[in-house]
C-alpha cells in the first residue's frame, strides 16, 4: 500500500515514465484541473476515452510508484548490509 509514501518528487519521477497519452490526460486532469469534456476537446477524443485514459494512467502510476518504493527499500537494505559488513 502506498498511502503516506507518495511525495511530489517520486510522483514527478513516475509521471515522466508514463506513456505520452496517459501522461497528457493525467497532467491535464489531476495536476492542472481540467474537466473531462475540456480534455476531450483538447485531445480530440471522447469524454469516455478521457476517463478511461485517466484511470489507466493512475493505475500505471500506482504500479510505477510501488516499483520505485521496492527499489528504494532494496537499496536501503543493501546499504545497511554493506555498513554492517564494514562494522564487523
Amino acid at each position: 500500500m502506498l498511502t503516506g509514501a507518495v511525495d511530489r518528487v517520486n510522483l514527478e519521477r513516475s509521471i515522466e515514465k508514463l506513456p505520452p497519452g496517459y501522461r497528457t490526460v493525467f497532467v491535464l486532469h489531476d495536476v492542472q484541473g481540467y474537466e473531462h469534456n475540456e480534455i476531450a476537446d483538447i485531445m480530440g477524443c471522447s469524454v469516455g476515452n478521457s476517463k478511461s485514459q485517466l484511470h489507466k494512467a493512475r493505475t500505471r502510476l500506482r504500479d510505477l510508484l510501488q516499483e520505485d518504493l521496492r527499489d528504494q527499500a532494496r537499496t536501503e537494505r543493501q546499504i545497511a548490509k554493506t555498513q554492517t559488513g564494514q562494522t564487523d
Partner: protein
Amino acid sequence: MQCSELEIVFEQFDFDSLPEPAREHVAQCSACQHYVADLKGIVAVAHELPAEVDPPARIWIALRAQLVSEGVLHEEAISRDQSAPWWQSFADWFRNRAFAAAAVGILIVVAAVSQMQKTNAPVLETREDGFGPTISVLRQQENDLANMQLAGTGSASNLSPVDTSLRENLQQVDDFITDCERRLKEQPSDELAREYLTHAYQQKAQLLSAMIDRGSLN
C-alpha cells in the same frame, strides 16, 4: 460485484460518488480499499504539483501589450485567446492537416539545422523585424533566471524531472525561434513565419516564468 468489474466503475465515476453496489464491494474487500486509497493518495499529491504551463499573469500581460503595440497581435486574437488556454491555439492548428504537415516539416528542419550547426550561439539576436521590445522583455526574464541560478536556486546538479523537462522545452523553443527568425529575415513578408514566431515568443515567456516561479519556490 467482483474486483474485476470494479475497473469499469472506477473509470466512469469519481471515488466519492461510486454507485451503491461498488461502495458495498469496496467496504468488504481490503484489496480494493487499498487500491482506492492508493489512487486517492496519488491524486492528492498530483493536486500539489505546480501547473507548469500556467504562467503568472504579469508576464503575459507585459508581453502581450508589447506585441499589440508592435502590431503583431491584434485585439481580435486577444479576445479569442482570453477564452482558451495558450496551447489550445496550437491544438487548433494541428487539427488542420496542412498546418500539422507544415509544423512537422519545420520541426524536421529545426532538428536538422541544430544538428548541423551544433552551436550555443545566443538565440535572441538584434534584428530589424519589429520584435525588438519583445526580445528585450524575454532577455530580462532570462537574466532574472540566470541570476537566480547563480544565487544557488534551481542548480543544475539536482534538477527534478519537471525542471529538466522545462529546460528541454526551452531549448526546443529557442531552436524554433532561431529558425523562424532566420525565415523572417530571408522573407520579411512571410506571415506564417511571423505567426509561428509570435507564438514561440509567447511560449518562451511562459516557460521562463514557470522556471522562475519554480526556482523561487525551491
